[in-house]
């Protein structure tokens, strides 16, 4: 009986809440470089397996994940982008130094997208697959999770629909959202730690006119001062 329980607890999908340091030591993680988030994710995103981030498109989600791209491209393997909603911009890929390592896949159907994802994992030619074609169901997620762990590949499901509330068998399931003027991230599920909601996040804009505005403001203040003085 004892051995049966021991073998059960060794199963990779079973997590013991009181054994987070010892049982999860073997998982290689890629830190995001944001202290609060990395702490909530028990060190970062696991190097192999399926992870999901839910957000609206254009929330700065890829900028948030940027830190994990570098260690992955240095392996010399490919980054696969499987997408369908929008068109990826090669200029952006070039600026992120990803263009030489990326392949773009635009399947017509969900079945094709999942097939392509599975093939990419099995080939062992890819270190990262960014899957944003559609929402994964439980069955598809389970298949991808098992395969990606087996073949040591990271599959990032960037879910732009945010309709799915189903719990998926993934390493990390998190949601990025804006409340008022503050960005938050809720970690719904994480291997090796407990879920945590409402993590405050600095999610900088790609560019802003703040510098010009403050310069204009200073100029106008100076102008007013000089007028008053005269």
């Amino acid at each position, binding site marked *: 009986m004892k051995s049966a329980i021991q073998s059960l607890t060794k199963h990779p999908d079973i997590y013991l809440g009181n054994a987070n340091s010892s049982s999860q030591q073997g998982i290689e993680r890629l830190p995001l470089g944001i202290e609060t988030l990395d702490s909530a994710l028990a060190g970062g995103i696991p190097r192999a397996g399926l992870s999901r981030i839910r957000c*609206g*498109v*254009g*929330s*700065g*989600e*890829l*900028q948030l994940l940027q830190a994990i791209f570098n260690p992955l491209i240095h*392996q*010399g*393997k*490919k980054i696969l982008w499987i997408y369908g*909603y*929008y*068109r*990826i*911009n*090669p*200029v*952006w*890929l*070039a*600026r992120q130094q990803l*263009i*030489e390592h*990326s*392949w*773009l*896949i*635009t*399947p*017509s159907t969900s079945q*094709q997208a999942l*097939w*392509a994802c599975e*093939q*990419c994992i099995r*080939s*062992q*030619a*890819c270190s990262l697959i960014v899957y944003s074609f559609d929402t994964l169901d439980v069955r598809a997620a389970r298949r991808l999770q098992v395969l990606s762990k087996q073949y040591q590949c990271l599959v990032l499901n*960037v879910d732009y629909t945010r309709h799915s509330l189903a719990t998926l068998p993934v390493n990390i399931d998190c949601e990025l*959202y*804006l409340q008022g003027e503050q*960005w938050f991230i809720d970690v719904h599920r994480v291997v090796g730690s407990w879920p945590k909601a409402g993590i405050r996040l600095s*999610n900088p*804009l*790609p*560019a*802003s*006119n703040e510098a010009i505005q403050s310069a204009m403001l200073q100029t106008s203040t100076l102008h007013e001062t000089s007028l008053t003085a005269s």
Partner: protein
Amino acid sequence: MQWLYVDFPFLQLDHFIHELAEDKHAALVVFCPVNNEILQVSGTAASAGIQRGMGLAQASALQSSIQLLPYSFESENRLLTLLASQLYQIASDIVLLAPQGLAIKLDPIIHYYQSVGNFVALFHHTLQQTGLRYHFATGPTVETAQALAKGKVDTIYETNAQAICALQSASLAVTALSEKHITQFNRMGIRSLHAVFQIPLEELGKRFDNTLISYVLALKGNKHTPRPVFHPSQRFQYQCELPFELEDSTRLLRFLTHPVEQCCAFLKSHNLTTDSLVLMLHLADSPQQQINIRSGAPLHNAQDWLSLLSLKLEQIELTSPLRGFQLCCDNTVVFHATSDHLFAERFSKHAENMLMGALLAKLGQNAVQRPKVRADHRADLQVPFSKDKEENSKAVIPQGQQPCWLISPPRPLTDSTRIIYGPERLQTGWWDNYPVKRDYFIATNAKGQRLWVFRDHDSQWFVHGYFS
């Protein structure tokens, strides 16, 4: 046994247009001065009415601004060898049939790629990157596949019987039979291969020599002619005749980029590296000038070598105009990896080939692509599926804020948004058919989404992408 034959009827011309031509839409022809015959015709020249087999006078009458390239058997042979070296990355048993064809044995490939379809998809993908026009076909022997490819069937037959059946309706002109033999057949009233196959071998033997009988047997798929298999050279050599004479050596760098990249690809595939390249300059009125480019340590990266070449070319003073060059790489040493990274990369190259083949076969050519940047500020023209030769390393990345995701075509802005950055004025394309005059902004909406919006010349607002 199954063979895939690929015919490159415009090898010299296509290579010139793709790699060297300043104006890719000029009326270009490859001309054989010995026979006064035009051998290869570009699209522009063909649309002017110039056809293969015409004389120079007739072609000049049809198109006054015609550009001539002298035909060179050696040049085509070199190009074919280079092409075979590229295909050797994805296929093993390659037979060269100079000057314009090569055959690939498919039987061992089926085991490697799991199906012929997977390999063929990868094969098309590889050839499309070279910019060459080609025709192909499969058959039980090289001769069968060759005749079908010359007949432009462009078909992969599932069985050899289908290939033989298709061959029967082909004319004698697509075969490798000599003019004399074709004339002899025509006198007998025989104009198709079907009729040739009907003649008993004894009857053929009475009228023709053994060479022809062997060829007919090979066409029928009954006899396999032994042919030497291509083995890639252990040294890299690239020769190029420039399209015009150069007086400034620094302008040579543009023509050296592609050979240097090929050289580095060659070194990587052979697990080699080198610390010296030899550049032989062919000058108009002076003897050849040899330039040795040395690096401090063995290199196998194209960008590193191009940087060194650029510095070297700045120092060279040409004594007479430059007509061509030869790039050689002789002093190679085996790359000793300090880690297992190189092996991992090599392994992934094979895995990549297999994956690309499977994806292309299942999803189609347009669904699987390597992204490429165009040196153009118009994001609408940044099509990831561009087949232009413009490589990422060469293309200048457009400046200004550009998002990850693009909406194609841009859709009218309906959300309430707040502008946080801009404007960036984009006014370009007045020289082509796609003029653009837009003011681009970054805006956010109530959900915090970062939108790339623009106002066009009619003050209409559109969303063009998202900053993710």
